[in-house]
């Protein structure tokens, strides 16, 4: 796939397909060399750390169960989805409302933020006291 030709929405949808396949190499190719991935309380910068992050998530059996909506504003794509994972289930959460915010430049993700949907009281929060 020639990533340079993808529009932002198609790029995120293609990434999601690679994510669903648990294809680490394909997922990482969507990221710029100096990309930043922010996940919950962590920040992962550069391809090596982003590759490790994907391996960890796939090992934790992260799955996108359903995409609620996807919006595009210029080079920014916001994906609202329902996700699950083995680790989430340890927090008694079969699924959570998640949001991915993708900042895209030159056909690559420059910054990606992944976490609970904003403004939604997360059950995860109740475990932090």
């Amino acid at each position: 796939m020639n990533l340079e030709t993808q529009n932002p929405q198609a790029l995120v949808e293609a990434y999601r397909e690679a994510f669903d396949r648990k294809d680490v190499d394909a997922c990482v190719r969507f990221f710029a060399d100096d990309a930043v991935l922010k996940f919950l309380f962590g920040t992962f910068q550069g391809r090596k750390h982003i590759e490790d992050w994907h391996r960890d998530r796939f090992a934790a059996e992260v799955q996108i169960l359903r995409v609620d909506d996807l919006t595009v504003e210029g080079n920014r794509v916001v994906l609202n989805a329902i996700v699950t994972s083995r680790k989430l289930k340890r927090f008694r959460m079969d699924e959570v409302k998640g949001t991915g915010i993708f900042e895209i430049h030159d056909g690559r993700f420059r910054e990606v933020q992944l976490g609970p949907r904003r403004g939604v009281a997360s059950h995860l929060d109740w475990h932090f006291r």
Partner: protein
Amino acid sequence: MDKPNVVLIAADTLRADHLGCYGYVHPTSPRIDALASEGVLSERLFCPGIPTHPSFTTLYAGQHPLRHGIVSHGGKAQLARQTPVLPELLLQAGYTTCAVDNLWRAKSWFGRGYEFYIDPSVRRGLLLSVSCEEMNDRAIPWLRQNRERPFFLFLHYWDPHYPLTPPARYHHLFYDGDPFDPKNRSLEPWWEDPLGSLAKDTWLRRPEGLITDVNYVSALYDQEIRYLDDGISDLLSVLDELGFAESTLVVFLADHGTSLTKHGIFFEHHGLYAETSPVPLLLRWPGRLPRGARYPQMLQMSDVAPTILEAIGVARPEDMEGTSAWPLFTSEARDGGHRQVVSAECTWQAKWSLRTEAHKLILSRDGGVHGGPRRELYDLRVDPAEERDLAEAEAGAADAMEAELEDWLARRLRDLGRSQDPLIEQGISLRHLTT
């Protein structure tokens, strides 16, 4: 006299013994220490209920958890609508009330009585990611816009709470070593815990690698305190700049402390040990409170609301059962404080404790996550860190304290017209994390 303003500052998860004014060796808290020297300091404010939801409910209601019924974090119990809470009482007394907090997202009674409720964390996915700078960015403009009437401003800072992610400019403080030493296995016991696993997956990862040294994580806790101290400095500077210093009662406290590693509890605030309670309590009101005075008497969280109400001349409702420490702080009374404090937790484990001047007994109803013995006894006169359990060696003393605790619980329940111990009735709220 016009009513004074009240600014109630709560720091989540802040241990008293990690502040300079409580004897800590590292310079974590220069502004908080200065606040202590400008007013009064309680050396021993105990929490009858931990962690966050029970403790803040106790603060607001001025009642023991046995009475208000909120004994666990995230549990199903609700605070009775007729229970008076501090913000409602101040609203009724003519105060403009404002919270900069997010607890209303978990439990609705934390929003009662507030005309203004500012929740900076609503822009974040996780409410405890909010920083003191974000809090102040909302609180300070509110202060500048509400200068004409007496106000009650409640601020609930989260910085010392998990995740320990101070800004990078603090990362060099309070630590001398290699945080990423691959041979260091001191954090490995935490990886099996869900919150430890989440930490390992997120905030313990840096571009340099995975943080492996438990002492560095403890240093991160101190860095967060120093960051918070800077935030409180900014807030107090604005109060002073606006000319509120003389006309404002400032109260600073924490809802509970936290264990860093003691008793096998890593960076969590459960276990009714000295790490979780007592917590700091400072009050400043120039001209009305002495400067630099310290009080060793045992106080408890339910005393704080009655103290504030008496200070500002607002009648306390009968349902508010705490004891005002205002006479003690203003030297109108030499005596004060409690002979004993009964505390509860029911979030990860269900336990009661009875603390006297000399001893602490911890009595387990359900060991939950950490299990532990059915009862523990510590001689606080020789073992204030609570490291040597004497429950077997001094079984007679343990028997006597257990009987005293059970009798206290039975009498209080009978007075309240109840029969069931709420720790047993409600059960551990986060039990699922044990499986």
